[in-house]
């Protein structure tokens, strides 16, 4: 794929911007040692938002001067996660459903993106492996040739090849997971998230059901388990983000409302010992944890919304040690939010709030402070967001 080989450093940096929270893809440090180049767009041009409310589907917005204008609504069943292709020409959605064409499985969809209007056109839809019900997350490999899916309900990982035209081929590799934990929600494996590491030949995954962090190898046979690491029993890893340095892995845990930092050996592809661990909120029975890392890798945002109260925090990252230092009073206005997910951009944090839709909080990359939230899109129950910069 010529287009991908010719990627400029600028594009990588842009790409990093939107994948930091959606796909949490780690990139070689040399591309990230500097701030985005002068003249490179640091603000997104288009936004794609998935929602699971009454009109579940994907909403397309064009963005000018932080104002979002609605462009299109695409019918899509429970698009729990969205991921842009590295070329920004294609968008992928995972449909968190439990049946497709009468078989017990979820699906993924491929869309082409009109570069001028941002409008989406469905390329194709592929079923996941049998029993691959309720898939929840997906990631595109750095070379743009593979889509990885975390199947929450069915407890599995799937790979699907991506064609040059952006279309998805049928599932080419499957790992069926087992496992459990002490929490009532941990009767079986529930993979929540997949992230490619910098090599592109490994997947890191978080399994909420079994408190397991895994490294999976992509190889000629498909997919195999390279290593497993146990998170704290009952913690319920939900989201993970690989620091741009490539050797720090941050994991937000939903069941005990905590945040962990692990060392990651990018050479051997193994998760090392837990370096840091901290609470991110007052744990409750039905809490939702989310996390986003600033594109530059110096601030991490976490949210934890239980019944009644929510919390939104910012943490400054010490890239040498992985240590986290809380930013005091990072977001004063956030306690009423019910955050499902967050996406960090260069100067903004986008928050997906169950009732208010998508909110933009001005973000300072240096201090970590967040400004007042402003509603940019009124969408019922938004759950996923992808930003296109080019």
């Amino acid at each position, binding site marked *: 794929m010529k287009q991908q080989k010719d990627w400029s450093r600028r594009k990588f940096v842009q790409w990093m911007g939107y994948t930091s929270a959606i796909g949490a893809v780690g990139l070689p440090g040399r591309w990230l040692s500097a701030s985005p180049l002068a003249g490179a767009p640091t603000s997104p041009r288009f936004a794609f938002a998935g929602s699971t409310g009454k009109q579940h589907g994907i909403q397309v917005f064009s963005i000018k001067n932080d104002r979002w204008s609605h462009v299109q609504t695409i019918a899509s069943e429970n698009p729990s996660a969205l991921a842009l292709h590295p070329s920004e020409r294609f968008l992928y959605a995972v449909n968190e459903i439990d049946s497709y064409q*009468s078989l017990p499985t979820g699906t993924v969809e491929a869309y082409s993106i009109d570069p001028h209007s941002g409008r989406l056109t469905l390329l194709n839809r592929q079923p996941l492996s049998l029993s691959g019900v309720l898939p929840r997350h997906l990631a595109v490999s750095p070379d743009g040739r593979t889509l990885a899916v975390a199947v929450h309900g069915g407890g599995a990982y799937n790979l699907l090849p991506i064609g040059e035209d952006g279309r998805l081929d049928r599932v080419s590799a*499957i790992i069926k997971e*087992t496992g459990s934990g002490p929490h009532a929600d941990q*009767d*079986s494996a529930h993979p929540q998230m997949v992230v490619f590491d910098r090599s592109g030949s490994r997947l890191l995954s978080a399994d909420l059901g079994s408190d397991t962090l895994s490294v999976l190898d992509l190889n000629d046979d498909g*997919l195999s388990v390279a290593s497993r690491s146990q998170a704290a029993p009952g913690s319920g890893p939900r989201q993970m983000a690989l620091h741009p340095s490539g050797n720090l892995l941050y994991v937000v845990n939903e069941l005990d409302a905590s945040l962990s930092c692990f060392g990651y050996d990018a050479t051997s592809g193994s998760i090392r010992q837990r370096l840091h661990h901290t609470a991110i909120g007052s744990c409750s029975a039905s809490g939702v944890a989310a996390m986003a890392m600033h594109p530059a890798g110096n601030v991490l945002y976490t949210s934890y919304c239980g019944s009644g109260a929510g919390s939104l925090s910012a943490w400054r990252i010490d890239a040498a040690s992985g240590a986290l230092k809380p930013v005091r009073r990072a977001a004063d206005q956030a306690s009423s939010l019910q955050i499902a997910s967050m996406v960090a951009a260069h100067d903004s944090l986008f928050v997906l709030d169950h009732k208010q839709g998508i909110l933009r909080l001005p973000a300072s990359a240096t201090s970590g402070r967040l400004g007042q939230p402003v509603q940019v899109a009124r969408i019922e129950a938004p759950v996923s967001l992808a930003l296109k910069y080019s």
Partner: protein
Amino acid sequence: MAIETVNQQDPRFTTLNRGNNARFPPTEADAASRIVLCDNANDVAEALQKIVSAGLRPTVRSGGHCYEDFVYTNPKGAIIDLSLFNETTPVAGAPAYRIAAGTQLGDAYTELYKRHGVTLPGGSCESVGAGGHITGGGYGVLSRLHGITPDWVTAVDILTVDKKGQVVPRRVDAKHDPDLFRACRGAGGGNFGIITNFYFDKLPPAPKEVTHAGVRFDWNGMTQERFTKILQTYGHFLETRGNDPDTWGLFAIIGLSHASAGSFGVNVQFCNPDGTCKDLKVLNEFLDLFENCNPSASEMTNDHPAVAERMSPQRPGRERGCLNGKHRTNLSPWFNATVRGNGGSFGETRSKYKSAYMKRNFSVAETVAFYKHMHRTIPGTDLRGSMVLMDAYGGAVNRKELIEETAVHQRSSVMKLQFLSYWRDPAEDAGHMTWMRDIYTDVYSGPDTDAKHKGTPYPNDHYEGCYINYPDKDMLEYSFWPELYYGDQGLYPFLQSVKRQYDPNNVFHHAMSVRA
């Protein structure tokens, strides 16, 4: 034998990666990455643990006769093959009789008969494996006399996979894991774990002898009226007289072949409840009924293998039987009539199946639909191998106390129908699938079907759903498909609870497995 793994590079792979139905696996991309052969329960447990730990999906085969793609559509997964695990010697501390899951029915009948003089009221195709057959409610020629196979099971050895992914060997019975035990008695294979052994405290005595007879009808000149009369004569006997215990040794089948095959027949196997043929009164009473239906003179003509499989002495080239009063009948020792090395045409034939349980006689509307589709032609499709087998059912099967004891709820039916089509050329796939779908939809869209469940034999006063050992993925298009197979009286929710408890990670799954 150590565990034998046959991977895709092994010359045995292409042979072992297929079963009885040449349609599966549908494509190379659907195929498993390996076949793992085991000849004892410990090896099965070890193999299963390795497969699960590696994140592979296990599917399980004993005889290879699954009607759908539940075993062979397993992309890059592992097929655990139990066909070499075929022991029948009793185990110390276990019930008197044992059949390992890989045992073929013909071998089980031989062992049980020669060693003990007993039998299992199972199916007539001898190469069917015990594992899938018994687990899915297997029945056969002796079922009206002795019930269905899971009725006799008193314990099973089963490997389940716990929530942590660890293989757990269990011997389950009415006192140990009783819910799982019940689920193993008829809910169908590939749902909860791998059954390695079946145990039986007792089994029914094998009949001493059986008598076969048959009546044939030419399609040529067959009017709708006469056709209806034949089917209703048959159904009426089973709906009424067939409930009397003195008739339970009578098993009959209409092999309703497509008109292009030339004729169809009623075949019957009979013995008295005591296992002898000293008194043929009931048999003659049954055969007399068809006297007025203008049967063909050539009553022992060629039967399709699917019928002949059940009624061996009817095959051409065998003796023509002797006259017993008005009827030509054929007496043989039960064992000789049952075990004859009939294994079917393994792996060469493509096929499709559907099923229906019937509580009542045929309605006129049903016979009209059968008649219409038996005369339908589809360009480029040879329908000579397309038929409906209408088995006599009921009798000892219909003991209501077994509804709660087993996972087979169909205990009120008097007939069990199997729609089937055989062909060889993949180019005919679409034609055969269309024929099957259309005849079935038509037959079950008549006045005995309620509007909500049109196109299916949904359980009601007339029908009792479908048979999970004749699984049909076409039924998945109905949201109520589990009720077709498991009824609407709570069996499916029960099976779902067993599934959640014993296979929380859904390691064992296929297109029609119990969905928790």
